[in-house]
């Protein structure tokens, strides 16, 4: 459903993605892995329209997203849980979560979804009136994840959800992703913890230096080969 076609993108004069093509299938969990600095985050940012494409195209259900503004892409049901948290520091935890349901079509479910997020993260329920800027690193990560869930997206892009979370919480998060997968949502997961990623994924893409090195259904992936590819510089 989401086609990335020969995409080139980067930051100003620095190009990061080099003619990258990949397909994300509906209802599947697609894992994108690769060493640090490979351009995984950059790819997700490009999909969301946060950085412009200098070449190529990205299409959702055949509609081109290139040149579209980020907010309009977001309203189309694609949601990104960003790396590095990107929470609204000057707003309360509850307002942060609520903003996740900003698109008109999502507002009806706010109360219900809020309750669900608080159930998943009781820690946030305790802190609902606190400014997000005062949260601990892990708590802020919970806010970012909870906020992403509030949007009930049809495509969920997740950038390193386990970052900064305690092991119990990591298990929780992957439990949630598991459930979303079972509900039939499309998920794109960027994760350094290959082990965890593979346990959830239907399909795996390995990126390195802005290119796609490997693209395989998860069951066929050989960990050792993956490992070798990782470090083949």
């Amino acid at each position, binding site marked *: 459903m989401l086609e990335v076609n020969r995409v080139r993108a980067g930051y100003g004069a620095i190009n990061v993605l080099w003619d990258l093509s990949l397909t994300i299938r509906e209802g599947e969990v697609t894992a994108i892995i690769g060493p*640090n600095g490979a351009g995984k985050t950059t790819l997700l940012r490009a999909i969301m329209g946060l950085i412009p494409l200098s070449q190529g195209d990205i299409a959702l259900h055949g509609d081109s997203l290139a040149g579209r503004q980020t907010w309009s892409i977001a309203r189309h049901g694609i949601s990104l849980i960003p790396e590095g948290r990107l929470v609204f520091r000057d707003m309360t935890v509850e307002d942060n979560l609520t903003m996740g349901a900003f698109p008109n079509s999502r507002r009806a479910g706010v109360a219900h979804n809020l309750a669900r997020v608080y159930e998943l993260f009781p*820690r946030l329920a305790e802190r609902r009136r606190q400014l997000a800027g005062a949260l*601990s690193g892990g708590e802020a*990560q*919970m806010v970012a994840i909870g906020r992403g869930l509030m949007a009930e997206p049809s495509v969920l892009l997740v950038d*390193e959800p386990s970052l*900064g*979370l*305690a092991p119990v919480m990591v298990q929780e998060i992957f439990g949630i992703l598991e459930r979303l997968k079972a509900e039939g949502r499309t998920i794109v997961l960027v994760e*350094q913890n290959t082990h965890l990623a593979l346990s959830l994924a239907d399909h795996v893409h390995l990126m390195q230096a802005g290119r796609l090195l490997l693209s395989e259904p998860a069951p066929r992936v050989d960990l050792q080969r993956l490992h070798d590819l990782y470090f083949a510089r």
Partner: protein
Amino acid sequence: MLQLDNIAVRFGGLNVLTDVNFAMETGEVVGLVGPNGAGKTTLFNVISGLVRPVSGRVVFDGRDMLRAPLYQRARAGLGRTFQIPQPMHELTVRENLRVAQRFGRGRVDEARIDEILDFLKLRPKAQADAASGLALSELKALEVGKALATEPKLLLLDEVLAGLETHGKRLFMQTLLALRERFGIGILIIEHDIETISNLCQRVCVLDFGKVIADGTPQAVFEDPQVIKSYTGGAAHA
């Protein structure tokens, strides 16, 4: 070399740390773990001087540090990283290290800066602006670089390994241990990856709700039922 007595920290009505006692020796490598929001970062803030505790004592290298301003603690040999990277935004990566070295250590040594850049694989990014132009992992590396450039006696590392690829983590740990050997520095490290902590540290201290609930060898600590319940969720053996 570091000793914390009865540290208590409150924010508004919230007790973030209560009666924390902790000590470590020169050259020790200690892991600090605990659930999210347990107060680990806050403890680092107390040690480095960003947060003043409502009560307690901070002794480093035999000096009472409680009233010492941030920069004095840094010059005395306390180096720290920030969990959410805080590069010096207006400077390049190299200039970041230069400032740390010039003011934390006292004089500039370009060769050392190059060494640090190489070690952290930041060489290609040396001229890049710190604020924009770095991936998250690179920003974390820069955090470590700044701390190392001050030539600390005690290194406080706050989740610097999170988000690193497995191989990178290993390399990093080896270098840290080498540093400890060479300069006899102590390391206090916050990390959520149990495997890493177990491999790196002789000793682990667990915080939960602002209290120390366990302190001992990794094996002992990670088998403690209370720790399993509140923190690892049984993932220790994963």
